[in-house]
């Protein structure tokens, strides 16, 4: 579980996060949504420890990040997995080497043990035949799956995904969404996904945090988001005709 209390972050005079308090639950897929410029990416990077914040606290399973020693922070980071928007695969390594990288860095496993784990994880993301390919030879969807495999190979407690569906076709996007959901359930980890994709909101949003202008505007789930009367949320989520119709049908069926 990740608990965030009164988080403030500024860049110079620009106040980006203006006191966010929320929590992300273990074993659930937690989504952060909001318009461009609402502070989602900054919030995610604060959660990852990539940005230092001026005020507030972030606790990972009760451990306040800012109160940890340098070694404890390093240990905590080794328990985090991250899927970047652009996949961020190391382009000088093959797909198998990319996935093996966290094991080589943080474990004392033998080469055979590491290879077995890489095979297992690549099989989990349906890439069992892509070991020797370079990232540049893989499609966008494959790269995302490799990034997920790399993020989970060291059995993290926390999985973060920054817009995992961006640039993917709808079918591949659903595959990635399902994979994230399955991995969260299977390994009972705390997953935080930063997304613009309304399909993801409907499909996998067990907890949804809506940011607006650096403030937490609303939080709920993929079920309560159908019923909310919050204008900012409805304007954002139901901006397309399709989703307005979906919402109308849902409300008619459930009332």
């Amino acid at each position, binding site marked *: 579980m990740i608990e965030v209390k009164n988080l403030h972050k500024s860049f110079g005079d620009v106040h980006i996060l203006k006191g966010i308090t929320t929590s992300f639950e273990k074993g659930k897929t937690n989504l952060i949504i909001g318009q461009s410029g609402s502070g989602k990416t900054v919030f995610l990077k604060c959660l990852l420890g990539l940005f230092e914040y001026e005020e507030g606290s972030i606790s990972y399973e009760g451990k306040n990040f800012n109160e940890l020693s340098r070694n404890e922070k390093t240990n905590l*980071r080794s328990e985090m997995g991250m899927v970047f*928007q652009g996949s961020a695969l190391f382009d000088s390594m093959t797909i198998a080497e990319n996935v093996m990288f966290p094991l080589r860095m943080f474990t004392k496993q033998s080469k055979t043990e590491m290879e077995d784990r890489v095979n297992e994880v690549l099989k989990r993301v349906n890439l069992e035949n892509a070991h020797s390919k370079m990232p540049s030879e893989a499609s966008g969807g494959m790269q995302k799956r490799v990034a997920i495999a790399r993020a989970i190979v060291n059995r993290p407690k926390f999985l973060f995904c920054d817009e995992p569906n961006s640039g993917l076709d709808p079918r591949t996007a659903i595959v990635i969404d399902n994979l994230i959901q399955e991995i969260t359930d299977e390994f009972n980890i705390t997953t935080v996904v930063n997304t613009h994709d309304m399909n993801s909101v409907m499909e996998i949003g067990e907890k949804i945090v809506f940011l607006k202008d650096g403030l937490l505007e609303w939080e709920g789930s993929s079920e309560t988001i159908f019923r909310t009367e919050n204008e900012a949320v409805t304007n954002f989520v139901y901006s397309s005709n399709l989703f307005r119709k979906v919402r109308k049908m849902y409300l008619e069926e459930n009332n």
Partner: protein
Amino acid sequence: MLIIFYTLALMKNPITYLQNIGTYFIMIKDIFRRPTKWSVMKPLILKDIDDLIIGSIGIVAFISFFVGGVVAIQTSLNMTSPIMPKYLVGFATRQSIILEFAPTFISIIMAGKVGSFITSSIGTMRVTEQIDALEVMGINGINYLVFPKFIALTLYPFVISIAMFLGILGGLMACVYGGYGTMEDYIEGVQLDFIPFHFIYAFIKTFVFAFLLATIPSYYGYFMKGGALEVGKASTTSFVWTSVMIILVNFLLTSLLLG
């Protein structure tokens, strides 16, 4: 004073400039902090030796050989007085090559070749979030990326030794086959009044330049912001500042060691 004046003249924004210097020295400290596992580091060092040292020998050999020839020809053509002995061509070529051409001139060429490579490769990793990926995993990105380059460039004196040898050889070839003197005269000049400390001076400079070649381009790559366009700009800036620092440090070391 000259160094301070020159540095001040180059400053556009003194605060930013001082911040950059501070960040650079913090980066140098971080190169040695939280070291990466040796089993991971070893292949990185070998790859950087291949990219930065072995990959530079060809261009260094080519330039050294022909510039050595040019130095010999020009020295010969400018010796118009009949009382000046012919062996001075060899002497002047040796002194020029060992004291300045091989350590300094080659280092500026390397600032373009190796420096741009380092800045653009690290900068591209920054743009594509690969460095963020390292940091999220709890890896000291500076140690992982800069330390192998630093170690690889400790072999830089080997490149400069080749440049010295080929520069003097190029002078010999140009002198003998161009009809500017005999081989005996040239070799006599090369052996004349040899001061071993000049070699020590040259290699002290080489080690310092190697450090600058590894760290300044790494700094510009690691701390760059923006996209693909900025990678190109960072490479250019890195070349300019590496060259400026090589020239300034060359002046400083020459004043201290030979002055």
